[in-house]
Each structure stands twice: as structure tokens, then as C-alpha cells.
């Protein structure tokens, strides 16, 4: 191989790069840190996401409770279906419902997720109890009475009681210990053990109530299984061949009208998956912003390093090195450093995932195992590499413009610094590759596209703002005040980092402001608006015969008002005759077809709804089934007035024509139903009533106590408790989001710090000359601070506008919620971030002020 061959030139470029790196990496510190932070954040977020997803997938059978599940609402499977199920494999039947658990003395009660299980439960996984004991033994009715209870009275003379195992929260809420008794419906149970791990725990339990497991033999005694009560019968199967999809196809073919919801383990935990996907998406986009903000730092670092290397570059040119060779050497240097930073970031990201596992394990109802996800790490590495190229190639192309003649002169003619076409094309290609990787690697393509477009707009906007500052500083008349004059001149002097600093700091600050406003809007709804406007309690499963008694109780409580509607649950089976599973609908509305929906019937337009299209039916309507549908869902499903929707109610398919569409105000948490039928269709079906009660906090305890005492089958869902649980979940997510956002700000600050460091020599020289000319330290400091303040205020102003706009897009378009502009968090975030940035500038200035003039004057 000749040394002049292409391969020989590559080897020479690598050799030059290696020698250059001997000079140390001080000039590249910002590049290293920015890449490390951005790639590390993305690697950690990607790994955590896959760990959670992997936890669900690895444990999917235990989470679902079997290879496959057939779920029926209101009623158990009929004889034929039950025979089919029993013949399909090992079968476990679980009956699940929401209920109230009470102390026997009636002093406290709690909403619970009640599960009545048979002897084969669980088919997969294991229920871990404390103290350790077999589940069957814990739930069994003991032949001998249990030891005397610590509190309340047992039912004397009936022999032993059935046992119940409960989540720790039940004990806390009721103030009971193991060995005490609780009542569920009309049956008393002995609390025999605490549930440490429940393989098929419902994610909704985090919000609506802790788990209680009893034996299915004890269920009948509770009296909760009344007509129309919201009871789910879950038939889980352990299939001999494990072919769940095949089994589902057979079940559908043999029982097309069964009205059951069939799921395989692959569909386990859809709500948890959706939530995790949302959180991961949010974190990922914030992490990507950190990486791209750091990109500006990469560009600045490369530019300032090359400026320092001008003599070396010029010397190499004088010695006969071609541009390509020098560019290759510096590109190799940048890539080698990037590779080192990326490798360290991946190691750190993987370590963080491992370190966060115990924390996550407590938060999520799934077992998590430490694992190495090369896919997530490779994606983070590729994003880091593309970011390096997108931001480094442009300044590297400036090597071509370094005149070798610089060695003979002190000044370099700035007019020569043109970026060649190939560099523009290569930068564009890297940027497009980056955008493609972001969009293709993100589950929610729409959100990713919004993000890419928003970030591109932010880069353009802030770069334009930076250029505007430079142009204004250049053309404005110079103020008389020397400090201000110097500050303004510094903003536009050749090589000033104004554009880079405005861009990076501006984007970082915009992200912070957007997040502060998004969180502020969510918090406003959850913590202020909902508690004010939402009802205090939902009561479910009120039997029609209990309505009058229920109303009587509410009337006796001062200040209480209530509304009730009949409530049924059914699954949408067809849209315009097309099976729901085959219908083409927008991904955002698929959830409405994936599980049961509550439905009601009404003569008049329900409270909290407004008509969006069509006409409401007359109150005395009699005729073929009509339905009113939620306008946003209809839009996502492509339904219009006159189309048909079929639902399966208790095994019977009802097809109704869409008579009108409604806008529903979900955020008030009133009674709202996606599907409201016209009178005349649903009345004969077994049903219960749903009531909402608005009342002052003082009456809440009495209301729940009295309803519990009179109607043990009625469950009370406390909105305050549920909101507090939601707020807790949001707070946990908020910590993660804020941590990711912090990385963005650190990246932005690093960029600023890098720019301050790069300008340090200039600053020291300016300070020295000014002091020689008689300027006081105060005057010099003022000049530098004016410069920082002008930049800081401009960045804060533009970032406030852009961050607010980004927050508005996320809240109104992606979260489809109401937007309220919140000046306080905005002002606080902008002020804090600007102060942080200014203090960095000040530290640089302070160091410059301390410099002794003599050495600089002798050597300069």
C-alpha cells in the first residue's frame, strides 16, 4: 500500500489526530460534557423504558393471569361457553369488582379492588404474602373460629370465618392489624396476611383502591353480586400448547355472540403500557432537547478549538498538507472524543438504569429485572454521533478558510470564511438523519414530528434573534457611556459567540418554561380546579330499589346535592357494521374500542355536554335505537351523523344510529358518558345507578358512613382520595421530567460556560487594556455585565414567548386539555435561568478582572 493512496492518507490523518490529542482535551471539555449528558440521558431513558416494557413482556402471562383471558361483564359464562373454557386448558376464574371494606365498628371504610379467586389461581406467578403462607390457606374458612379479634365483634356461633388477604394500605386506612376483622358487603372476613406481591394487580388500583383477595366461595355471602352490579368475570387459561392467538380465533368462531373480551398475554396491562409510553415519550423528547442544546456547545467547542489551532492548521498547509487531510485529522479527533464521551455516557446510562431499579420496582406493579438493552444504547449512541456530525461538520469546514498566510500576518480576513457546499450538504444530511431517527424511534410519530418541527423552528428563531442582536449592535449609534459602548461593541465584534449563546441558552430556557407551564396547567387542574368543581364522591352499583333510600340519606346532609343516572357497561363491537377490531381508527381513540365503556340513556342533553352536530331527540322519543356519541371520538373513528354503532350488552348486540355528537367536558369529573342512548332501548336491561354527590368536606365522612351502613353493596369513590393518588403519580413523573429538564439546562449552561471560557483571553486582554487606560474595576465589570445582561434579557424574552407557545401546543394539541397562561411560573423560571446564566458570565468576568496587566502587556 502506498503512503499516498487513499488508505495511506486516512492513516496519516489518524496519526495527525493522535498527535493533536496529545495537546489535551481542555478545549473540548464542553463537547465532552454536552455529549455525555445528552447521550447519557437518552440511554438511561431508553433503557428504563425497555426495562419496564421488558418487565411487562417477561411477566405478561402472570400480569394477565394466563396465556389468554376471556372477560365478561355483569354475568358469568353460560353453560356452553363454560364447558368450552374448561375443555380448553387449565382454567382459573377470578371475579373482580370495586367494593367497600369496613371496620366492623363502622368507624372507617375504604374503597377496595376486590378479587374473588378459585383454587387454581394464580395460573402463572405467585401471590407473596406476609407472613408467608399458601394463598389457599389464607383465604380458607377455618373449621375452628379464628382467635378472638382485637377489635369489633365476630359472628358468634357460625364457626370460622373466611380469610382475606389485603394490601398494606387497607390496614392503614381502616386502622386494623392482621388478625382483625373487616366486612365486605354482608360478610365478615379475618385479615390473615398482607399482600406483598400480586402478579395480576390492576394498575387502576393505584388510583382507585388497594387490593383485597378473598375466596370465590366467600363471594356469595357478601351479597355484592346483584343484577346490574359492575362485576367482571375473568376466565384465565393455561393452554396446553400455549397457542393463545389460535385459541382466541377458535373462541371467536365458536361463540361469535358471547360478548366477551378476549386477550392474550401480549395485550397485558394496556393502561400501564399506555402510561409508561407517555412518560417515556415525554422524557425522551426532553432528553433529546438536552442533546441538541448540547449540540450548540459542540459547534462552539469545535469552532473555538479550531480558532486556537489556526497556527497549526496554517503550518500544516505551509508544509503541503491538503485541506482534505487536515479536515480528516480534525474530524477524526472530534469523532474520537465523541466516541469516548458516548461510551462513558452509555456506561453511565446503563448504570443509572440499574441503580433506579429498586425505586421503579416500588412504583410499578410489575417485577423488574436488571437487563442490558443494546438496542436502547445503540440508538442513544447513534443519536450522539449524528448530533456530533450535524453540529461539528459546519465549523470543521472552516478549516478550508484558514489561510496559510495567517502565519505571516496576525489578522485573518473573515470574508474568506465561506462554508463549502459539501459541508452544508453533509450537515443537512446529518440533521435529516437525526430527525428521521427521532421520528422513527418514537412510538408517537405525531408528537415526534411536532417536536422536530418545534426544535427546528427554535433553532431558526433563536439563531435569527442572535443575528438580529449582532446586526443591531453593529448598526446602532454608540452610546456615550463607555461601559455600555464596550458592551454593545462586544456583542458584534468578529468571532463573538452571541448567536451560539442565544441559540443554546434560548432553547434550554424555552424547554424549562414549556415544562413549567405544562406542569402548572396540570397541577392547576388536579390541585385547584378539580377539587373546586368536581363532586366529592361517586357512588356506584346503586340498585334501582335503593335509589329512594340513597336520596333520603343525601337529603339529610346539609349542603349536599346530587345527580344520578342509570349506568350500564358494554363494549363497542362494530362501527357501521365493521367489527371494531378491524375498523380503521386513529391511534388516539383506539382505547375506546379496546375495553368496556360506560353507557346510559337520557331524554335530555346531559349536564356538562354541548351539542356539536345533529339534533337531540325529543324527550318522549319512541323508535329505533338512537345514540349520542362523543364528538372527538367520532372524529377519530370517522363516524358521522346517521352512521351506526353496535354494542354488546349482556351478550346481546344492539345497533343504534348516531343521532348527534356531543362535546364533553371531561375535566369537571361530572357524570359523562361516551355513549348516551335515546329512551326506549336500554331500560329493560339489568342496571345499576351511578350517583355523584357534591357536598362540603365536613359532611363527607357522615355520608359515606351512612351509605355504607344502609347499602353495603354500594361503593363510594372519593374524588379527593383519587385526585391525591393522581397527584402522587404525577409528582413522581414530575420528578423524572424535571431531572431530564435539568439536564437540558445544564447543557445550556455548559454551552454558555464554554463560550465564556473561550472568550476568557479576550476578556482578560480587554480588562488589562482598559485598566491601563485608567478604567476602574467597577467600570470594567459593568461593561461585561451589561453585555451579559443584554444577552440574558433578550434570551429570556424570546424564550418566554417560544416556551409558552410550545407549552400551549403540548397542552392543547397533544394533551387536549384547557390552557391557562400562568405568568408566575414563567417569570420565576425565566428569572432563575437568566440569573444562573448571568452568574456564569460574572464568574468569567471576575477572573478577568483579577488579571495582572504586566505579563499580558509584555507578551501581547
Amino acid at each position: 500500500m502506498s503512503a499516498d493512496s487513499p488508505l495511506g492518507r486516512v492513516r496519516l490523518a489518524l496519526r495527525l489526530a493522535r498527535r493533536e490529542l496529545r495537546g489535551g482535551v481542555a478545549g473540548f471539555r464542553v463537547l465532552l460534557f454536552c455529549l455525555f449528558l445528552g447521550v447519557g440521558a437518552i440511554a438511561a431513558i431508553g433503557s428504563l423504558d425497555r426495562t419496564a416494557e421488558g418487565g411487562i413482556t417477561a411477566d405478561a402471562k402472570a400480569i394477565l393471569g394466563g396465556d389468554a383471558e376471556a372477560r365478561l361483564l355483569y354475568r358469568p359464562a353460560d353453560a356452553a361457553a363454560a364447558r368450552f373454557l374448561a375443555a380448553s386448558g387449565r382454567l382459573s376464574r377470578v371475579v373482580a369488582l370495586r367494593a367497600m371494606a369496613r371496620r366492623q365498628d363502622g368507624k372507617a371504610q375504604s374503597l377496595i379492588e376486590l378479587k374473588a379467586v378459585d383454587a387454581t389461581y394464580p395460573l402463572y406467578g405467585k401471590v407473596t404474602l406476609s407472613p408467608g403462607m399458601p394463598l389457599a390457606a389464607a383465604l380458607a374458612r377455618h373449621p375452628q373460629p379464628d382467635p378472638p379479634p382485637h377489635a369489633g365483634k365476630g359472628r358468634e356461633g357460625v364457626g370460622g370465618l373466611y380469610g382475606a388477604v389485603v394490601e398494606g394500605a387497607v390496614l392503614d386506612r381502616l386502622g386494623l392489624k392482621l388478625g382483625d376483622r373487616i366486612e365486605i358487603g354482608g360478610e365478615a372476613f379475618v385479615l390473615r396476611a398482607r399482600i406483598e406481591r400480586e402478579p395480576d394487580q390492576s394498575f387502576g388500583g393505584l388510583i382507585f383502591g388497594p387490593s383485597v383477595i378473598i375466596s370465590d366461595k366467600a363471594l356469595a355471602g357478601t351479597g355484592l353480586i346483584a343484577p346490574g352490579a359492575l362485576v367482571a368475570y375473568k376466565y384465565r387459561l393455561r393452554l396446553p400448547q400455549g397457542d393463545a392467538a389460535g385459541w382466541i380465533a377458535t373462541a371467536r368462531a365458536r361463540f361469535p355472540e358471547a360478548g366477551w373480551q378476549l386477550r392474550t398475554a401480549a395485550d397485558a396491562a394496556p393502561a400501564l403500557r399506555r402510561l409508561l409510553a407517555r412518560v417515556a415519550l415525554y422524557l425522551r423528547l426532553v432528553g433529546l432537547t438536552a442533546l441538541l442544546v448540547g449540540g450548540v456547545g459542540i459547534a462552539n467547542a469545535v469552532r473555538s478549538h479550531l480558532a486556537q489551532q489556526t497556527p497549526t492548521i496554517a503550518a500544516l498547509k505551509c508544509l503541503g498538507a491538503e485541506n482534505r487531510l487536515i479536515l480528516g485529522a480534525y474530524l477524526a479527533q472530534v469523532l474520537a472524543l465523541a466516541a469516548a464521551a458516548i461510551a462513558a455516557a452509555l456506561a453511565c446510562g446503563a448504570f443509572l438504569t440499574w441503580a433506579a431499579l429498586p425505586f421503579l420496582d416500588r412504583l410499578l406493579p410489575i417485577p423488574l429485572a436488571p437487563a442490558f438493552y443494546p438496542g436502547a444504547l445503540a440508538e442513544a449512541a447513534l443519536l450522539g454521533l449524528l448530533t456530533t456530525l450535524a453540529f461539528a461538520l459546519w465549523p470543521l469546514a472552516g478549516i478550508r478558510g484558514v489561510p496559510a498566510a495567517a502565519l505571516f500576518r496576525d489578522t485573518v480576513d473573515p470574508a474568506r470564511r465561506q462554508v463549502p457546499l459539501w459541508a452544508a450538504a453533509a450537515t443537512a444530511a446529518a440533521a435529516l438523519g437525526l430527525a428521521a431517527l427521532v421520528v422513527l424511534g418514537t412510538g408517537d410519530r405525531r408528537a415526534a414530528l411536532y417536536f422536530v418541527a418545534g426544535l427546528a423552528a427554535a433553532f431558526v428563531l433563536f439563531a435569527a434573534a442572535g443575528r438580529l442582536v449582532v446586526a443591531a449592535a453593529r448598526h446602532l449609534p454608540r452610546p456615550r457611556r463607555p461601559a455600555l459602548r464596550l458592551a454593545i461593541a462586544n456583542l458584534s465584534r468578529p468571532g463573538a459567540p452571541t448567536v451560539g449563546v442565544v441559540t443554546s441558552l434560548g432553547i434550554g430556557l424555552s424547554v424549562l418554561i414549556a415544562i413549567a407551564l405544562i406542569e402548572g396547567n396540570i397541577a392547576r387542574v388536579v390541585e385547584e380546579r378539580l377539587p373546586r368543581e368536581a363532586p366529592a364522591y361517586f357512588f356506584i352499583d346503586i340498585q334501582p330499589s335503593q335509589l329512594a333510600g340513597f336520596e333520603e340519606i343525601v337529603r339529610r346532609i346539609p349542603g349536599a346535592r346530587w345527580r344520578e343516572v342509570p349506568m350500564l357497561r358494554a363494549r363497542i363491537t362494530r362501527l357501521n357494521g365493521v367489527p371494531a377490531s378491524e375498523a380503521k381508527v386513529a391511534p388516539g381513540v383506539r382505547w375506546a374500542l379496546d375495553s368496556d365503556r360506560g353507557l346510559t340513556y337520557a331524554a335530555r342533553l346531559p349536564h356538562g355536554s354541548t351539542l356539536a352536530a345533529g339534533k337531540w331527540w325529543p324527550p318522549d322519543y319512541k323508535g329505533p335505537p338512537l345514540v349520542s356519541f362523543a364528538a372527538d371520538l367520532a372524529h377519530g373513528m370517522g363516524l358521522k351523523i346517521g352512521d351506526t354503532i353496535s354494542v354488546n350488552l349482556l351478550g346481546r348486540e344492539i345497533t343504534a344510529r348516531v343521532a348527534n355528537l356531543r362535546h364533553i367536558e371531561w375535566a369537571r369529573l361530572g357524570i359523562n358518558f361516551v355513549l348516551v342512548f335515546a329512551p326506549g332501548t336500554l331500560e329493560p336491561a339489568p342496571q345499576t345507578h351511578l350517583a355523584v354527590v357534591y357536598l362540603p368536606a365536613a359532611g363527607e365522612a357522615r355520608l359515606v358512613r351512612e351509605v355504607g351502613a344502609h347499602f353495603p353493596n354500594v361503593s363510594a369513590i372519593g374524588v379527593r382520595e383519587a385526585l391525591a393518588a393522581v397527584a402522587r403519580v404525577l409528582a413522581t413523573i414530575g420528578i423524572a421530567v424535571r431531572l431530564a429538564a435539568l439536564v437540558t439546562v445544564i447543557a445550556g449552561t455548559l454551552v454558555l460556560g464554554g463560550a465564556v471560557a473561550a472568550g476568557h483571553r479576550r476578556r482578560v486582554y480587554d480588562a488589562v487594556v482598559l485598566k491601563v487606560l485608567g478604567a476602574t474595576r467597577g467600570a470594567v465589570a459593568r461593561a461585561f455585565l451589561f453585555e451579559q445582561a443584554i444577552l440574558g434579557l433578550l434570551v429570556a424574552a424570546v424564550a418566554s414567548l417560544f416556551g409558552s407557545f410550545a407549552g400551549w401546543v403540548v397542552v392543547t394539541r397533544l394533551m387536549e386539555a384547557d390552557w391557562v397562561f400562568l405568568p408566575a411560573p414563567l417569570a420565576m423560571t425565566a428569572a432563575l435561568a437568566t440569573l444562573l446564566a448571568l452568574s456564569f458570565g460574572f464568574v468569567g468576568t471576575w477572573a478577568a478582572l483579577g488579571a495582572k496587566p504586566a505579563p499580558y502587556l509584555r507578551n501581547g
Partner: protein
Amino acid sequence: MTPSLHSGGPLVLFEDVHLTLASLAGPVNILSGVSLAVEPGETVAVLGPSGSGKSSLLMVMAGLERASRGRVRVAGEDLGGLDEDSLARLRRRRIGIVFQAFHLIPTMTALENVAMPLELAGSRDAFGRAEEGLAAVGLEGRLAHYPGQLSGGEQQRVAIARAFVAGPDLLLADEPTGNLDATTGRLVIDCLFAERARHGTTLILVTHDSSLAERCAREIRLSDGRIVEDRRAAPGEAGARRAR
């Protein structure tokens, strides 16, 4: 002595060369109609006051600056017709440069600095020849030293070794003693002339120092970008002056 690769005609030929550079205050004329021919093996001193265009003349010769007008031929190549990389290759093969501020690459050892032109030219024995070059300027004991570990005089001797190592036809030196004290400067100049003599290289030397200029066979004086004097010493005069 390395035989010159150039055959026939002047090694350097300037025909009515103008150089105008842009500046914030408008275009500045640096060279205004310079015509000049330098034969192979000549030693030429370029003198003149600051701003007269001496360094610019060297830059145009080295292909580091393009003439705005006129024709420049070096070693038989018309520089106006060469792109930047071709000019770099021409320098690599034919031209050595010594700067006033040495301009060694700080991250490379003395040996690596000297080997650089040979490495760029794809020479297989770059380091062996670089070692010989350093030995020739008396720095065989400083091979592994970085520029920061060498004195000014030593750095300039490394720069001289680097300029001669590829056996150039033309050596351009821009105030090579400008950053050195008188004694060290004399030693460096001795070294430069010894190397020139050893390689038979054409030398064009920019200087303010008339005693240094006297060691050259020809003196060119510039003023305001024009040649105002072009004087050849009588045969033997340069050597005699050197002896004084």
C-alpha cells in the same frame, strides 16, 4: 548535494505581479507590478521598510497568497492555474519555508515536526531522514523534545531541518532571526546557510538586517510594493563579505 528537479529557465518568475487585499477600510495594494526572475541556486535577500510588501512577496511565491494580477511561475509551474490542494502538493515537493516565529506544531516532537513534510509526501523513510536532518542542525539529542521544551534557537533549527528535509528546490525564509538574540541568530543563520549549501537550494530571505543580507549573492529592495533596487554582488563578493 541533492540535484534540483527543476530543469531549465528561472526557478522563480514574476511578471508584473500585483497583490491587492481587502480590508475593512477598502482594498489595499500590497504589490504593485513586481517583475523578478530568480535562477536555480541563487541566494537572494529581500530588504525594505515595514509594510513594503516583503512578506507578501514570499507568500505569493509560496502559493499562500494568489496574485491579483500578473503571472507567477515557480519550479516551472504557473501558480495561477493550480487549485489550493495542487499548491499544497507543490510546496510539499519543491518549497521549504522558515518563519520568524518558527511555527512548529506544539503537539509534535522535534522528530515528528521534521518528519511531517516527508509523511505528507508519503515517504516510507520519513523518520530516518528526519533524524538525519536534525543531526545536520546539531539536534540529534533533542529528537523526542516538544517545541515547548526547546529554546528559541533550537526551535528555529528544528524549523530549518523541517524546511530542508524534503530536499526542496526553493527555500523561503521570513525574518528567520527576528525572534532571536544576536548570538543565537548568528548560529541559526550559519546553520541555514550550511544546509542551503549542502542541498544546493535556492534561498530567498526576507530580512531587515543588512549584515545578513550581505551573505546573499543578490539583494532586492522593495518600497511600496515595488522593486526599487535589484543588485547582484560581484563574483566572490558575497563570500568575502561573509568572511568579514
